């Protein structure tokens, strides 16, 4: 009897020890504005689900989110208060503000050096702050020209435009088809939606202008920049482009309805435009995406950052999560979802973008030529002033007036 009791006691102790040693899964939190959009949850949340499936010892809580319009401001406030989700999806242009706030954690010791080594030097520099690695490069996307081939045919255009001047000529021909038909649309919702200011960079680049000159000085009223603004003004005055009050969302709807010949947009939003069409099949039959002729798109780079409030003991798990998110599995999920996200890792792209459609191929090619945004701490504020310049042009200001006002306003922002 004593022996039996001893055996039972030993068995009980061994079981208890074994139970205590079985580690409970750790939980890390992650957020993205895309999680606030129902149709994107299977892609962005799905990536986390795939990670959890392959890493059962880590739970990713992706329940916290904010819509895009409020995302950055809410994220900054949460980060400043130390209550942000541990990992956040950000756009590259937001990183300088987060760095200035001092809320971002060094991830260098926790991510795979081999993976980081696959990115080009410019990308690594963009996520570095001295010796620290302050963000994980995730993916990039860029803009290509949406073309409505049915409108092109009606206007007697038989070939895709190959230069900026050809694009403008074709746009004018299409605009002549009717009062409610636009040749080349440029969005301006007057600030209802963000990102419409830097959307005119391809026009500046088409005229050899840029946000800054070779010496690094603001150059928004240079001779070439004024030519670019003059082009936009003529498009507005001649009814070739939509005017103030039309956001990107409006342009997607109008393109879907067959009222726009050309405008540049993301691969991920083709579906949105298609959903506005009376007949989706017909839409896709008349849709073509090409690289923007005579200029190029701007690269929107997306990063993952880790905030200071992340406990150190969770950092190894966070590092595994960051590595996984940049891998072919996740980029493949994005590709399958029609998101047009291209990795900065050649090995990932080689695995994912095999035998892709003409449309995806156009975006991959456009990504190769896309120029980076002139990101700095004041860029987002300056961007909203470019929108004001577009509104001025629509209200009748000359290109020179709009450019001078823009230059002076942004100079003051930087001077402060």
């Amino acid at each position, binding site marked *: 009897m004593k022996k039996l009791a001893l055996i039972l006691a030993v068995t009980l102790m061994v079981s208890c020890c074994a139970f205590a040693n079985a580690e409970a899964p750790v939980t890390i939190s992650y957020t993205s504005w895309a999680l606030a959009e129902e149709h994107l949850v299977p892609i962005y949340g799905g990536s986390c689900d795939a990670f959890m499936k392959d890493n059962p010892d880590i739970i990713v809580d992706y329940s916290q989110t904010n819509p895009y319009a409020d995302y950055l401001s809410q994220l*900054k406030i949460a980060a400043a208060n130390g209550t942000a989700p541990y990992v956040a999806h950000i756009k590259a242009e937001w990183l300088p*503000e987060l760095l200035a706030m*001092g809320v971002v954690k060094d991830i260098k010791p926790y991510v795979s050096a081999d993976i980081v080594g696959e990115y080009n030097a410019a990308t690594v520099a963009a996520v570095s702050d001295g010796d620290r690695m302050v963000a994980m490069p995730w993916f990039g996307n860029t803009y290509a020209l949406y073309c409505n081939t049915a409108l092109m045919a009606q206007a007697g255009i038989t070939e895709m435009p190959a230069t900026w001047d050809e694009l403008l000529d074709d746009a004018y021909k299409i605009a002549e088809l009717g009062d409610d038909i636009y040749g080349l649309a440029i969005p301006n919702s*007057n600030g209802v939606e963000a990102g419409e200011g830097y959307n005119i960079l391809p026009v500046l680049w088409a005229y050899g202008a840029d946000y800054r000159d070779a010496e690094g000085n603001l150059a928004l009223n240079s001779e070439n920049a004024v030519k670019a603004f003059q082009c936009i003004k003529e498009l507005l005055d001649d009814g070739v482009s939509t005017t103030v009050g039309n956001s990107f969302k409006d342009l997607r709807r109008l393109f879907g309805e067959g009222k726009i010949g050309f405008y540049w947009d993301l691969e991920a939003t083709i579906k949105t435009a298609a959903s506005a069409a009376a007949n989706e099949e017909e839409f896709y039959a008349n849709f073509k995406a090409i690289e923007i002729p005579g200029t190029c798109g701007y690269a929107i780079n997306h990063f993952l950052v880790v905030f200071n409030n992340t406990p150190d003991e969770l950092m190894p798990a966070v590092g595994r999560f960051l590595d996984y998110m940049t891998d072919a599995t996740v980029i493949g999920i994005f590709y399958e979802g029609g998101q047009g996200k291209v990795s900065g890792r050649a090995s990932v792209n080689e695995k994912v973008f095999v035998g892709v459609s003409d449309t995806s191929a156009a975006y991959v090619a456009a990504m190769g030529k896309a120029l980076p945004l002139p990101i700095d701490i004041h860029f987002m504020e300056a961007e909203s002033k470019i929108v*004001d310049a577009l*509104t001025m042009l629509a209200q009748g200001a000359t290109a020179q007036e709009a450019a001078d006002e823009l230059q002076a306003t942004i100079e003051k922002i930087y001077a402060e």
Partner: protein
Amino acid sequence: MTVQHLETKQKKKKSARARADSWFGFALTLPAIIVLCIVIALPILKGVLVSFFDYHLQDLTKDAFNLDARTIGGLFSGETALVSDQPIVPAGRDKGASAVINYSWNNLKNYKDLFYVREGKSVLESEFFQSFQNTVIFVFLTVVVQTVIGMMIALLLNSRIRGRGLFRGLLLVPWTIPSVVVAILWRLMLHQEGGIMNYALFILGFTSTTRVSWSSSVVLARAAIVIAAVWRQLPYMMVMLLAGLQSVDHSLQEAAQIDGASGWQTFMHVTIPSIRPVLISAVWIAIMSNFQMYTIIANLVGTGSKTGTNTLSIAAYQEAFTNNDFGKGAAIGVLWLAVLLVITIISNRLSARSATDYQ
């Protein structure tokens, strides 16, 4: 014991009871006062404080004051200042605080910036005056239009018309819709491409095209936000005025009519004075709520500064949450508060005088 002595004793008792009642009343209101201090007074005071300092996102977690013994002691010995014009790095923790107030003083830069103009331009073209002017125009037009139309509808509903209850119910619907939905609804209705209002105006012959861009001109953009705000707030004005009209003593109106007063004269000299307290309260509340309007403006015409719709609320939001300059955002708020305080004082005096006139 004399009668006088008894009276004095009774008075003392009463006064003791009154004092006890007064303390009891104070004790009952104390929790509410504490809550109000925490959620209203303290944030206002902090807003006023930070409007004089550099205050950005990274300062959010800083304590406002260094109140440790060393810093306070240093204040008297001259080792520490009340404020510092240098950026203060975690003061009061490791190396000892250099100033009692834990933010960097910026020589009223937040206020100066609001009145900054480029050479050759008038101060009236400064950021603050532009936003203030836009706010005043928006508030004036919105309140006047909603008061006039609200009064007309209230008079109609106060008369004996058929289906009065149904109309009253239907007219309340816009009030139940969230402002952001109202803004999006009107944005679609006024949209250049396919907006139903553009179509209606064209059919009625007011415009020569169905494709009017309401955001491309200052006048149209202002008209758009006034229309949407009036549509949203009209039920409130109508309900308030209707309540006032229903409390008017009909015998006064009948007496005026017997004395030969016309309908207009009766309305102006009997009805309006009778509902004056309600009218003033309703107008005052409308002024206040429109001074703070953000949602409809930002979602209907956007936050751009060239459409004449950049009001004080939009400017404060932009500075604080887009540019992360909470100090400048707070400075706008402080000036805005000062303007509203002046209007409140004037309104209260007018209101008190009108009440006396009526009595």
